[in-house]
């Protein structure tokens, strides 16, 4: 049995390596093919980072703050960071982090959110969020708002964030 396993091991390793390489290769191919030819030379974070599920929590009547959430996927080998966000309907926009320390729910302003090379950063309830302060109007479920994200290389990306109740967030964590 031992001898058999020993003999098989290189084969298993080889298969795994080929498999991984194939997967890697697939991703690369998809990414490249999606980009316009001129983009092959571009290297801005705004072009290399995909924003998934941008969403804003709907506000209660009279509530002038809200949080925006999303997943930032870095499709490049360079680490970037989200450094600021702007939104026309708010007097201030900040990046905050919520954390549970012992039993205490804490929130603090942070300067940026790191997005690792070939990694992602998740902005979700109970973690990082974009804090919209001094909202000029009520944000109603079913509407969409435009957020402008600025990354560490000063490139900017505009996203349409859906406004919703985000009521069941804990469940999926």
């Amino acid at each position: 049995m031992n001898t058999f396993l020993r003999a098989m091991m290189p084969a298993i390793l080889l298969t795994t390596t080929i498999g991984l390489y194939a997967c890697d290769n697939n991703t690369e191919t998809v990414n490249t093919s999606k980009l316009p030819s001129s983009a092959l030379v571009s290297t801005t974070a705004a072009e290399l980072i995909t924003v998934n599920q941008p969403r804003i929590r709907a506000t209660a009547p009279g509530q002038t703050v809200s949080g925006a959430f999303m997943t930032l996927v870095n499709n490049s080998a360079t680490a970037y960071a989200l450094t600021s966000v702007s939104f026309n309907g708010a007097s201030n926009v900040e990046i905050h982090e919520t954390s549970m320390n012992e039993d205490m729910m804490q929130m603090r302003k942070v300067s940026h959110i790191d997005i690792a090379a070939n990694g992602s950063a998740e902005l979700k309830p109970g973690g990082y969020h974009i804090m919209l302060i001094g909202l000029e109007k009520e944000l109603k479920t079913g509407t969409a708002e435009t957020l402008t994200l600025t990354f560490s290389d000063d490139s900017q990306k505009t996203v349409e964030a859906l406004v919703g109740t985000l009521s069941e967030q804990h469940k999926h964590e």
Partner: protein
Amino acid sequence: MSKTLILIAVLAFALGIGMAWYYLPQSSPDLETNTDGYTKVKMTEGKFGGDFTLFQGDKPVSLSDFHGQLVVMYFGFASCPDVCPTTLAIIASALRQLTPEELEAVQPIFISIDPERDQGEKLTAYAAYFHPDFIGITGTPDEVQNIINQYGGFFIKVESDSALGYLVEHTSKTYIISKDGQYVSILPHDMTSDLALTAIRSGL
């Protein structure tokens, strides 16, 4: 290992268990019972829980006003962008799954720990936004601190460089007070609406 050594080890182990049994405080089963995912504690005036009075606008509201109803209570603040609205929405989602008869026997209460910013109509509208049965009450910061302490919670105002001015750090538990006012079920900050529903139904 020789038989003697094994015997000594067994005896030492038994002695340790015996001593732990003798010296460690025993939690009395009727004081605190751990049920699936939440804790049930007996109200002990001066020690845990108890009645209190706060205000809905100018109107005094006491916990004892709801004797005979199941009270679902949460401490938070309206400028909280994240944990508070998530928890309130989870409570609301559990309430929406109740039958009208069940809902009749439940009173949800939101207690603001930020009376400087949450008051009167604004607080009422904020609470009712999550579920029309919700009432929003508050008092002076000291009054609210005393009440949250009574229930084993805590909050603190923290100065920050945010445009919000100060931030409020707080415990984020949900309390369900039994109809007879004798027991409090304490639900964790990361509860689901299923857990809230289970805890509410078990008290009806």
